[in-house]
């Protein structure tokens, strides 16, 4: 079993496993939407799951958004999901 560590999702601590994607960590924690669309203001999360659709873009540590389905978690990551999720 991979080592586990914590990341912060908004202000909430979330347990995750080394080597897993941000999307996997969020969905395991019961979070399935993590951004708000520009035009309609609706919530989005994982869709294609394999790096194609970019729906799962997520803001980590205030950096430019990355695909949550590809980017792996790092200890201490601060992830912003916003919205009412």
């Amino acid at each position, binding site marked *: 079993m991979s080592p586990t560590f914590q990341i912060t999702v908004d202000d909430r601590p979330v347990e995750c496993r080394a080597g*897993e*994607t941000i999307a*996997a960590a969020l969905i395991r924690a019961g979070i399935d939407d993590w951004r708000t*669309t520009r035009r309609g203001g609706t919530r989005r999360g*994982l*869709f294609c*799951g394999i790096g194609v*659709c970019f*729906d799962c873009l997520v803001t980590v540590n205030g950096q430019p958004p990355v695909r949550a389905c590809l980017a792996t978690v790092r200890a201490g990551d601060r992830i912003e999901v916003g919205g009412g999720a």
Partner: protein
Amino acid sequence: MVPEESVVDLAVVGAGPAGLSGAITAADAGCQVAVLDLGARPGGQYWRHGDQSRIAGIHHHWETFRALRSRFDAHREAGRIEYLPEHAVWQVQRERPRGVVVRATAGERDPVPRTVRARTALIATGAHDRHVPFPGWTLPGVMAVGGAQALLKASQVVPGRRIVVAGTGPFLLSVADGLLRAGTRVVAVVEAAGARAYAREPRAVAAVPAKLAEAVGYAVSLARHRVPYLTGSAVVRVDGPDRVRSVTVEAVDRAWNVRPGRGRRLECDALAVGYGFVAQLELLLELGCATRLDRGGSLVVEVDSHQRTSVEGIYAAGEPTGVGGADLAVAEGALAGDAIAASLGRVGGLDGGAAGRARRDRRRLRSFARVLANAHPVPDGWRSWIEPDTQICRCEEVTVAEVNRAVALGARDARAVKLLARTGMGWCQGRICGTAVASLTAALHGREVEADELRDLCRRPLAQPVELGLLAGLGPGGRVTGGPPTAPASPGNMSHRTASDRGTIDSTTRSLAP
């Protein structure tokens, strides 16, 4: 470690079944190979896995992967294969006098550029789920069936507690079976094709007993868990308002028009949906490789018996040559690797027996792929499921009504619709909505989708988002906006297209608006 500017014999894009098989076969013959892959581990989508223990039974033909993996690792240790995981290849170009340059960014987080020069390239970029729009498909809790599978295979994470699996094709059964093995509840599998989809070609089905056995295994698994398999049915709506709470299933006819009066609602908290696959062709199209319409109306690259495309030194294997699954991809990859080695004057890729087996596998599995394509067409009756305010382009949030309006304003094809309505101009560059927009536009004009239209939709001068600074740093030798020297001029000016279509290369857009 291959030094940045050295030239390897073969650059392979994709480390799935086709790419692995091709790389290994070429390395067996003594070729120096670099393998670039978007994933973090070899295996592609089919053999996607994580660091943790796997869920028993969800990875099919795992023994085949283990065998490929051990040969792959042996070649890596011997220095014949350099493996470059988490590399997003955004361009492959022919380079004079005889070679190929592959440009990539390494790492989804803090990406750094990486260039590989090679004498030949094998493009084995696989495929992604094909989608049709329907009301509510953008709500949280709806995901591609391949995405659900990817989560399960890599992380043992299930996207819900009560999941509906819907779309068309045998892949739905594979994913439903995986979800059941993971211990989640599958509410139903909803298959748009009729129950007798395979009845017309019993012999072709019987010719691949392993596939038949796999299907029987899924049927048993569904029956044991009392999961209804609803054929001739489709999820035509996701009931929100804020996320998936239930879905509406309707009976559909062979053209997928709703047969009224048979609707039912299924309570669920997630929907995994997919209508077959779309091959990832952008690198091949930018290289100028010839493509054609395959059965089922999807665009595929043309290859000869050696898996050669129409462009010298460029080979393709797996889904880009026609969606056909992992076994076929392995066979095609091996034949490509062998042909590449031979073209470089190296022998010893495949011995005569192995080459014969690979060719027989390829023939048999391609004919089975045709049976599947015939059994699971994607007719345009899904237009009876959509509403004017249904989003067709998820990225730019373009509705069906906006596409209708663009057509009313005179847009004759999907490209014109794109310019007027912005479909396909967002982050995914039309990968998700392209086939649906083309299909809707064609239907509004009372015609079929044309190959040129799909070619145009699949053209993406930069196959992955690239920071502007990286492009600026390419220098005079690193042409980005032009096609290969021998390619015919593309419709429209490509540098113009690069600038206007793709906000994605602008680093300022790499921030999410609130």
